[in-house]
Every structure is written in C-alpha cells, then in structure tokens.
C-alpha cells in the first residue's frame, strides 16, 4: 500500500469523524439563529437573535433550569466519586467471592439506562417524601453515575501498585500523608476523569429527571424537549448549544486524561 493511498484514507477517515461531531453542532448552531428557513433554501432567509435573547434572558424557567442542572450535576459528581473510590479500589486490587455479582450489579444500571427503575422509584419516593425533590433527583442520577465513576477508577487502580503505600507506611507516614503523597497523585488523572464523567452523566439525564423531579426540579434537558415538542425550533436550538457547550468544554479540557487513565 503506497503512502499516498494510506494518507488519502486517513484524510477521508478524519473527515468522517469530524463530521460526526461537526454536523450535529453546526446544524444546531445555524438553527438557533435561523428565521424563515423553509424548503428548499439551504440557508435561512433571515437571521434572528430571538432564540438567543430568550435563552440568555433566562425566562421561561431557563435560568432556573440551568442553575438546577449545574447544582444537581455537581452534587452527583462529588457523591459519585466519593462512593466510587473505595469500591473501585476493592474491585481492582482485591479478589473476593461474589466479585462477578458485584460487577454485574454495578454494570447493569450503566448499560441498561435506569428508565425502568425510575418508573418504580416514582411510587417509592412518593411514600418516603423524596418525590419532586432535589435529593430524589440526585439519588436517581447516582444510579447511573456511580457505576461510570467506579469503572473508570477501577481502571486507574488496576495500574496502581499498593506496595508504594505499604512502604510509605513502614517509613512512618500516617494515612493522610500516604493519601496525599502517594495515592492521590497516582490516581489524580483517573479521579478527574471519573468526576467529569459523573458530572456529564447527570447533566445529560432527561427521562430520569422527568419522572422523579415531577416538574418541580427543572433541568435544561426538560426545558429543551418542551420547546422542541412545542415547535419553537430557534429556542430549542439555542438551548441545545447551551446544553452541549459545558460538556464539550469539559471534554476538551480533559482530553489528555483519557489516554493516561
């Protein structure tokens, strides 16, 4: 295979992959400022800032939704990492009976999106007073976020040698110093990655928040779908950009971590 053919192939592949990201983003960006964009025009007849004005003004619950989304995602991120840390360590560094079962229990909510569980939890939460509450929504997001965080951290821990910790302890360091100087620096990239994934998992949830939040806990995806179904495409598109931007930013900032972790 000549180098030229290989290079052409690579360019084509790059174009395809770039398209997978740019087509959705580009379409939505144009849609957010489009007015009178009818068949068969490839470009809108007019441009408008109506959609953006509305979104930026925060009215219609958008401001609250944004604040709520961030708050929920942050709490989910913090809790998911806190819960995942010991679990990941156990999964990676220890062997024990029932490991298969544990892995299964943690894997299922990640791969079978917990719509079904949320339908059941709806009634349960009502009875314990968690329905329509911030805490209820956080809890239900955790079902999906904790497994993600756990498995990422487990991957990190599998490359970690606990002997370093033992050595430090025999040299007289206390637990906190061991953590600060040995463990934490070693797993920091994986930790950051797990945190980001947990944040994004919570940020992107739609149907879970819809079922458990019950209209009281309003997040960006809920408002987005309401506008899209209501037919206001400019506002829906602008909201989509607002929805995607933080995720893209977080991924961009942490791209190098994906390789190390």
């Amino acid at each position: 295979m000549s180098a030229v053919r290989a290079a052409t192939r690579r360019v084509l592949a790059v174009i395809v992959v770039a398209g997978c990201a740019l087509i959705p983003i580009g379409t939505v960006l144009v849609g957010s400022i489009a007015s009178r964009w009818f068949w068969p025009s490839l470009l809108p007849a007019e441009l408008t800032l109506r959609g953006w004005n509305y979104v930026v003004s925060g009215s219609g619950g958008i401001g609250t939704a944004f604040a709520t989304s961030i708050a929920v995602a942050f709490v989910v991120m913090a809790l998911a990492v806190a819960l995942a840390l010991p679990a990941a360590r156990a999964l990676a560094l220890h062997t024990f009976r029932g490991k298969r079962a544990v892995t299964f229990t943690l894997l299922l909510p990640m791969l079978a999106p917990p719509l079904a569980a949320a339908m059941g939890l709806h009634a349960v939460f009502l009875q314990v007073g968690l329905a329509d509450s911030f805490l209820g929504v956080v809890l239900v997001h955790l079902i999906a976020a904790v497994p993600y965080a756990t498995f990422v951290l487990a991957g990190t821990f599998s490359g970690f040698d606990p002997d370093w910790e033992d050595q430090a302890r025999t040299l007289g360091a206390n637990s906190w110093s061991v953590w600060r100087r040995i463990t934490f620096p070693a797993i920091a990239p994986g930790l950051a990655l797990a945190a980001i994934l947990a944040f994004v998992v919570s940020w992107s949830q739609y149907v879970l928040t819809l079922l458990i939040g019950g209209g009281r806990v309003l997040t960006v995806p809920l408002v987005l779908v309401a506008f899209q179904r209501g037919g206001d495409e400019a506002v829906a598109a602008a909201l989509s950009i607002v929805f995607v931007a933080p995720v893209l930013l977080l991924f961009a900032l942490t791209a190098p971590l994906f390789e190390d972790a």
Partner: protein
Amino acid sequence: MSSRRLIVMLSATIAIACGSTRPSDMFPATDLARMTWNEVTSRARGSTVRYAMWAGDEARNRFYQGPAADALRRDLDITLTIVPLADTSDLVSKLMTEKAAGLSRGSVDLVWINGANFRTAKQAGILWGPFVQALPNLQHFDPDAIQHDFGTSTDGLEAPYEQAQFVFAYDTVRIATPPATFAELCSWIHEHPGRFTYPAIPDFTGSSFARHFLLHSGEVPPSAFAERFDAGLYDRVSKPVIEALHAMKPYLWRKGETFPATLAELDRLFVNGEIDFSMNYSPTFASDKIARGEFPASVRTFVPNDGTISDYSFLAIPFNAPNPAGALAVINTFMSPTHAIMRARAMGGLFPLRLDRLSATERDAVEALPRGPATLPLTTLATRRIQDAYAEYVDRFERDWRTEVLQR
C-alpha cells in the same frame, strides 16, 4: 406599651415573616359557602401561588412571568410562581399518585387543565372544589358553554379562562380557495394524494380533527353527541366514519404509513411544502407564527362552513393545594376583562369573554386588538362553532382510531 402587647406584636411579626404560606392556609372547599369574596382576597394577600402550566410556548411564558405576575403583585400582593410542565397529564398522574400515597399538602396551587385530563382528574377526586360559583368574574362567561369540558360536566371544579377553536391553515401561494366544507376537504384529499395529514392520536389536535368526521357524519346533528353517551348511536355512526378514515390513509402523506406525532412535526411538513394544510386550536396561531418567522407571510386560516369544535381552557385547583385562597384570587383575576385584554395583546388567542358584559371602553379595547393577517374575525368563528362530544365518545373514538386506523 404593656409587655403582653409587645409579645403579641412580636409573634405577629414572626408569623408574617415565617413564610407566605402558613399551614392554616388550607381550608376545605365547603367553607366557601360561608366566606365572602373579601375574606378570600384578604387570605390571599401576601401569599405565593404556584401555577402549573405547559411551558413550551415562549410568548405564554413571557406573559405569565412578566405582565400577568406584575399585575397580581401590584393589585393583590400575590407572588405568582410558574411551575413549568412538559405535559399536563404528567401533573395529573403525579396528583393521583399523591392522593394514593395520602400526601395532604402538595406543591401546586393552580393548574391549567382541559378535556381528558380534567375528566381523569375529576374521576380520581384530585380536584379541590366546587369553587366556580364563588368567583365574581364568572358573570363574564356564557353560562351554557362552560357547563361542559369536552363533554364532561365541569360541576364547578374548573373555571374557564381561555377559549380555543379548531382552525385549519393553508398557504395562499399554493391554494387559492380552501375547501368550504369537510366533505370538500375529503374530495380535495382524494384529488391531491400525499398532500395532507394530521397528528396521530393521542395528540390532542389530531384527535379533534378526526372527531370532526364523527360529529359531521350527516346522520345526526353534532349536538346529538354532546349530552351523554349512547352506545347504539356510537356504534351506528362510528363504524362508517372509521372505515372512511381508514380508506383515506392511502391518500395521505406517506400513503398513511405513518402520521406525525406532534403538531411541531405537522407544521414542519406544512412549512416545507410536504403537505398543504396545518391545523391548530388557537385561531391566532398562524399570525403568531408569521410574526415569529416560522410561517411564510402568505399563510391564512379557514374554518369549514359546517363548523369546528370550540373548547374553553380551564383552571383547576389540586385537592392538596397549599394555598387555595390564593389560587381562587388568581383565577378570578385571570377571568377579568383587564387580564383578558392584556393577554390577548400579548399572546393572541380567541377572546373568551361575553362582549355584552363589558364596559364601553373595554369593548373598544377588544375591537382594537391587533388581529394579525391570518386570523379570522370573531364573528366568523362564532357562527361556525360546534360543541364538542361527550367524553366517552372521545375515548371510544380515540381507541378505535388507534386499533382500526393506525394499526391496521
């Protein structure tokens, strides 16, 4: 000042400062008979009312969070908080589950509700009331028309505040004269295969569209379906209508293999020239969309001569509303001419109040309302109006449509 007076004043201050909805704010609807309207208003003053409404319309959201909320704060010192809903049936499901779980103090005071949702809510006993008879502004509405909602008797459990009428939209660039009757519309569909469709049931508008064929079957006048359910009548009339709708499928868009799921999809098809008609419950929807750049300026609306269904939108109070007095005050305000005129200016829509009960200035203001290029005059709409069918007809027809038209 004696120390006792001081304590009383302090307690009062603390009580007032401790939040705007005190546990004693809840009271049973039966108390209304003993209360004067002034008592209701004074209980409502200074409180917060949580209003659950569908949030997918920018103009509506802006209006209720802006001018409407401001007016309430100014006139009655009430803080209006909007609880956005993606779908009213979500809230109804939630209230039913709350009632089953025994939750006596809910989180919503007021809900915008209609038709099937109202019937379910009424049957499930999740509404507070009856209360409508206590509202001073009830006089502004036509007493006969507000007795029924989609055929279910309202029984004072919901108050009217907006009115809608089913209209079609078409593009004058593509169609010079729209069909004059439903029969002509059918012929048009047969002559122009693939150029018409309607949203699939359970979409509200799609259901109404299909229901017109039942009401206009020709065998009986539409009013025969209004009062109560007659199974014999239904079986007799619906069979040929359902068959006709099924036979219409091959002439519809995509040969009837599928239907758009929402009005948003229908409008997208309409605007992009895939179909030639759209439909909506708001007579001003076309003018609104032209103003927002979502429809071309050549779009107009029409109503067939046989008449289309008109319904009121209603407001109801959930059984466990924490602030029923506040809800009552807000409902009454929404039913007032001032509010209706303000709302018409901001959002369009059909003016729901009786013109004969308005003052001269108010009537002038109504006449001066900007109508938009695509909106039909009030008189045209009023003369081409039919009452909706009793709820059970709606149910049966929707179910039959899904099994016999959609799934066959």
